């Protein structure tokens, strides 16, 4: 049974196209992401990688003029779920889908409330978590994000007063508090300094042992450091996927962009 699971892809995308106001942003993307490790989507800015990521938790629909075609299937808790269900397929409410697929953005998006409320509010409001369990789950999530030691005595402080790296880990903790089956990360280290970025990367590596992590990255070096699966996007289409990056170097990856330059 377990073996069977590990063979099934944790994310499978079929013929996915997304357009905004008739302007196609990603076109006919098909890929299967195997279970385990961190899957990295890499590409230049404007290549559609963020849109692809947001198609997984239907976040594109929050933007005006969006139209999505194709299929996305997720393996959530051992069960395959169609994100864009066709006729007759079991559908999952969009709010529940987003709870079970956590997301962290490029710039830290803390809510304008206290550190504690940042975690507790989604739990109690979106999930209906009983009050008695809140404290434990908040603490648990903060520990997982390696933030507990830094903020345990400042839980009532406005979250905006944390440093950038702390804010991003708080966002990670907020996603983890909902106990998702999958984490989506949109260039989570892009706005952080080197040390804070490394800290987040280490966290992601350890988290990926327990849940599927899909991440959009802006750097080739980072992609090679983290990826167990690599998807390369270019002007809205999927150029290639790699199941193995060990032994590869940045210049090998660069060639895939047809000589085009990427930010290091």
């Amino acid at each position: 049974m377990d073996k069977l699971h590990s063979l099934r892809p944790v994310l499978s995308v079929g013929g996915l196209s997304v357009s905004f106001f008739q302007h196609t942003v990603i076109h006919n993307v098909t890929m299967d992401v195997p279970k385990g490790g961190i899957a990295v989507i890499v590409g230049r800015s404007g290549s559609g990688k963020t849109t692809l990521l947001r198609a997984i938790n239907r976040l594109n629909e929050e933007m005006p003029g969006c139209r999505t075609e194709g299929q996305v299937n997720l393996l959530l808790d051992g069960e395959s779920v169609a994100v864009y269900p066709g006729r007759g397929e079991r559908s999952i409410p969009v709010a529940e889908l987003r709870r079970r697929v956590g997301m962290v953005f490029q710039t830290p998006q803390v809510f304008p409330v206290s550190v504690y409320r940042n975690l507790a509010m989604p739990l109690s409001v979106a999930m209906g978590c009983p009050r008695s369990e809140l404290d434990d789950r908040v603490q648990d999530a903060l520990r997982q994000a390696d933030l507990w030691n830094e903020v345990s005595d400042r839980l009532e402080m406005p979250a905006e007063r944390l440093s950038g790296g702390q804010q991003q880990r708080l966002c990670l903790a907020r996603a983890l508090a909902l106990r998702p089956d999958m984490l989506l990360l949109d260039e989570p280290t892009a706005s952080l300094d080197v040390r804070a970025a490394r800290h987040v990367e280490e966290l992601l590596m350890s988290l990926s042992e327990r849940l599927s992590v899909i991440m959009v990255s802006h750097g080739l070096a980072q992609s090679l450091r983290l990826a167990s699966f690599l998807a390369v996007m270019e002007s809205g289409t999927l150029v290639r996927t790699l199941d193995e990056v060990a032994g590869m170097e940045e210049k090998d990856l660069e060639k895939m962009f047809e000589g085009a330059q990427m930010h290091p």
Partner: protein
Amino acid sequence: MKHSIPFLCFRLLTGFSAALVPTMVCVLMGYLLMRGVPVMGKELLFGSTPPLDAVFGRAPVWDGLWPACVGTFWLVVLTMLLALFPGTGCGIFLAELASPLQKKILGAAVDMLAGMPSIVMGLFGFMLILLLRHTILPDANTGLLLAAGCLALLVLPVLAASTREAMNAVPRSLRLAAAASGFSRSQALFHLFLPAAAKGILGGVVLAVGRAAEDTAVILFTGVVANAGLPAGLFGKFEALSFDIYYVSSQYQNQQELLHGFGAAALLLGISCLLLAIARLLEGSFRRKWQGKA
């Protein structure tokens, strides 16, 4: 560089108006304050009645502004009670929930109401009383509650517009983050966006208080009188600061009454400016909070 004559005239005019307008305003308001401020004091508010007796309503105030201040106060409080929910509700609805068609219709109606002369609101209240007299309530008369109801219509668009703007200023990134955390639309609205926009909305509320306090045309139709004393109740006649000022300007008998008028005008000016300053501060801190966030 050679300039055409019209441009030179234009340049002259800009300097001229930049000098003229502030001068006029300063002279007018300076004159008012010069004559009004010296009469400020216990006398102005309470006349010859002991202040404590007046405040607790133990003794009537005959020659002071106290009844007018109390009347304006109750008027504003009732107005805000009546207008707060409909006004902010409209703003939230327009910003978050309305379909494009609803937005168009309700938005047009609110805009139209915003430009409506205040005297039309007063006329509306007056008509309402005439209608009631001819139908179910022969004894109906204008009073405090009616005036507040009409003023509520007057400030409703102020509230709606500022609420809508505050809600629209909530950054898109926060909306995405909320959606990604699994909030449904209404959950995110009530638990995140409304608190985030609260300061902006509050700024609008303060502005609306200012409008309700200063307006004269509406209450002219709906039960203000010059010598009512303290308001007798929800349906009683009342005095108001703004009306007192108008009344003094046309009907004053002696120098002392005139000075009272100046005092009242200076007082109302002070209150209005204070409210504007508070609204600006709130709005400023609301903007600062969201500045630098994509």
